[in-house]
């Protein structure tokens, strides 16, 4: 009885959180803000599902956008062909279409999973990369999905009232599935395959089945996200699912810390918001940019050298390194002010929008230099123990 009480409470909590996000987004944010919240939800689903394949089961897949695309196209095509001849309303129809997307994408996952089982590491990565390209080129040439000119998903369903709650429910559901899995011995068998395939099979684990399960499950979640995207966007075109989408999802997983669910979530939210938040930077003097860049480089190179000699509790080390970073950045800013005295730089300014992607890329490089194991490493972020350190 207590079990079902806790279970119902957590389901209610999940739904409540999704509704809360929905309500905040629609009542507080601009249309553009709502769009960001939706995209963040989709990227959380994508990153968490890739983390299941990549971080938890250790199968290096770099074609995740392909499953996203398969789900989007399948759900979109299903709507175009079937919606007008059935009685469901928009609100009930979108989840149905998402399930269709998930099923078709998981079939694609099975298709990639089965032949690639003998492959590991780089070799598997190449196969998934190839699969991504096959899907992209197919979608560019298939007349039934509109080929290169794209496919309109009629009628428009989510453009008037975006169901933000649905997209976040999917994200929260994905997180819950992965978290549940890791609480059980079943989840340990996935981690075992990541750690050592030979030892896993010698311990009686069906490595084949485990890998296929990870691929099918991960691609189903991505497919459901695609199904939502198709109806949210109302228009699908192959360039929306290029290789850069696969890479940004992979970046989220690695940046958050491979294998860490919460890491993937944090990185997905941060990386989908960062390029947009950087749009707010207006015009800044070129000298400041140069000064700050030098400051950052100084902070990283000094910090990396210094941190090897630092000992003592984590908090002290973090404090000292933050102090160093602050000093370097402050110094960089002052240097920028000084540089403005130079006649060549006194008037030169740069548009924030122009350097936004440079800052974004630079941030990724910096983070990987400073924390190659990802923001959370293999750990999970928990409210109870703040940063809990179970061995993962």
């Amino acid at each position, binding site marked *: 009885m207590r079990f079902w009480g806790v279970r119902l409470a957590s389901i209610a909590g999940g739904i409540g959180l999704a509704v809360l996000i929905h309500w905040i987004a629609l009542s507080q944010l601009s249309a553009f803000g709502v769009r960001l919240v939706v995209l963040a939800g989709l990227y959380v689903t994508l990153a968490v599902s890739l983390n299941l394949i990549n971080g938890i089961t250790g199968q290096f897949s770099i074609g995740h956008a392909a499953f996203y695309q398969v789900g989007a196209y399948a759900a979109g095509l299903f709507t175009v062909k079937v919606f007008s001849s059935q009685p469901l309303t928009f609100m009930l129809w979108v989840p149905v279409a998402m399930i269709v997307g998930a099923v078709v994408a998981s079939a694609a996952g099975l298709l990639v999973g089965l032949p690639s089982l003998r492959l590991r590491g780089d070799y598997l990565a190449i196969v998934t990369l190839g699969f991504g390209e096959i899907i992209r080129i197919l979608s560019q040439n298939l007349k039934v999905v509109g080929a290169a000119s794209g496919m309109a998903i009629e009628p428009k369903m989510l453009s008037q009232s975006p169901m933000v709650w649905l997209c976040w429910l999917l994200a929260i559901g994905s997180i819950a599935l992965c978290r549940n899995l890791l609480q*059980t011995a*079943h989840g340990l068998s996935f981690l075992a395959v990541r750690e050592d395939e030979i030892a*896993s*099979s010698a*311990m009686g684990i069906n490595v084949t089945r485990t890998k296929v399960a990870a691929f099918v499950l991960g691609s189903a979640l991505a497919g459901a996200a695609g199904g939502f995207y198709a109806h949210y966007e109302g228009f699908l075109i192959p360039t929306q699912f290029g290789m850069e989408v696969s890479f940004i999802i992979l970046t989220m997983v690695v940046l958050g810390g491979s294998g860490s669910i919460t890491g993937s979530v944090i990185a997905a939210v941060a990386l989908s918001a960062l390029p947009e938040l950087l749009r707010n930077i207006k015009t800044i003097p070129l000298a400041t940019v140069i000064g700050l860049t030098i400051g950052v480089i100084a902070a990283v190179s000094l910090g990396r050298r210094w941190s090897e000699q630092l000992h003592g509790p984590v908090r002290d080390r973090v404090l000292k390194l933050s102090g160093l970073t602050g000093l370097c950045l402050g110094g960089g800013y002052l240097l920028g002010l000084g540089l403005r005295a130079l006649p060549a730089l006194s008037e030169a300014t740069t548009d924030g929008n122009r350097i936004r992607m440079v800052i974004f890329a630079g941030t990724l490089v910096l983070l990987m230099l400073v924390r190659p194991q990802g923001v959370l490493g293999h750990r999970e972020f928990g409210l109870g123990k703040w940063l809990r350190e179970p061995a993962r």
Partner: protein
Amino acid sequence: MKPLLSMKGATIRFGGLVAVKEVTFDIRPGDLFGLIGPNGAGKTTCFNLITGMYQVSSGEILFGEDCINGARKLPPNKICELGIARTFQNIRLFGALSALENVVIGGFLRSRSSLFSALTLMPPAIKDTRALEAKAMEYLKVMDLEEDAHTRARDLPYGKQRRLEIARAMATNPKLILLDEPAAGMNPQESEQLSRTVRRIRDDYGKTVLLIEHDMRFVMNLCERIVVLDHGEEIAFGGPDDIRNNPKVIEAYLGEPV
């Protein structure tokens, strides 16, 4: 008595090299069986044949009545399910996982709960996991590792890693356990203690043990029957005293007593 494991002319060729040539011996239930020989003699290859990592080129291997490698070639996980577990010469633990988790994974193959119940965290999956954890804790106690239950396997000292591998193999609940150089890198006290533990695995838990070892004192004190391999061929078989005094073994492996 019917043999538990029979090697019947098991042979494997890698290109032109015959790594194991027509090896034939029987292991009876309850044996403490040793497999020795110089480096490169084919001992670990024998283990890989028995556990299905390699497939025989000719001959066959029977486990009880079942053919596991030969006419029928079972994959390693099926062989483990039938009841053969092993450790590795170059330790292969799940490094990032805790000692306890390593042993839980060993017991996982006997778990009957579905993936679906794990994903939805239903009672069968929870109950299974708790039971496996309790069982794993017992095996850790047997190997004297209960204090390290929550230490990452990678962070354990070498001797403990070796013992953890045995605990993990025990957790699969095998009939036959294969130990590949369990005493390698251990000091005399540790290997003495290990020798007692291995005997306990046989006496208290009724497992049959097949082991590879270079530490001759360890093998001669522990094993009741020994097979000697050299260049993939069987050159001697018998009790410790027969082996010690066998001129062929002395020439190929043991060397002249000083």
